């Protein structure tokens, strides 16, 4: 089965500090990968998606960027965090055999 590993589970970072959230996929190859952000009590907002190594599509202009250095690795980054970057970040993977599955999420608090 396809498993999405995401870490850390929680993160508290000061304003202006860099960010790196990592997501890795186990159990499938060549998945489509996604980064979502969820505000409290709301639905998910798609931030980035990738259909292959080095291919990144951005859905929302913002302070964040994404990279896919390997087939099963998807990284969400920021050079300087803003207070508005606080939220719950979910990585997801999509493959023909296993459908759409999510990681366990990272709760980011920018202080």
């Amino acid at each position, binding site marked *: 089965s396809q498993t999405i590993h995401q870490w850390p589970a929680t993160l508290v970072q000061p304003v202006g500090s860099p960010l790196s959230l990592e997501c890795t996929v186990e159990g499938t190859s060549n998945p*489509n990968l*996604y980064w979502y952000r*969820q505000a409290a*009590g*709301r*639905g*998910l907002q*798609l931030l980035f*998606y990738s*259909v292959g190594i080095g291919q990144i*599509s951005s859905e929302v202009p913002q302070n964040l960027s994404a990279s896919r250095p390997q087939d099963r690795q998807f990284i969400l980054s920021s050079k300087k965090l803003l207070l508005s970057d606080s939220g*719950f970040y*979910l990585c*997801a993977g*999509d493959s023909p055999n296993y*459908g*759409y*599955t*999510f990681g*366990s*999420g990272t*709760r980011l608090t920018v202080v």
Partner: protein
Amino acid sequence: AQTVTQSQPEMSVQEAETVTLSCTYDTSENNYYLFWYKQPPSRQMILVIRQEAYKQQNATENRFSVNFQKAAKSFSLKISDSQLGDTAMYFCAFYSNYQLIWGAGTKLIIKP
């Protein structure tokens, strides 16, 4: 534009009762997928059930079943014999062309 609407912000039922969560969507696509996801307080997003648009038969997973009406663009979730562990936010989602469009969610509370 594709949209997903969940018209029930919150619902509560007694344990063991049956509850139906509504979802409607709007699209011009013919091939797509529909999902119901459950998000408990842990905030893990858990797939409950999935429906391919080309399949006429309604999907079923144990106590969870859907009523998929493609012409009406309706995709409701029925939970039978509800349990305390079913308490969670439930999101309806539409997937096509790498895009997963989400409803606003329904908060479901199962009362003992």
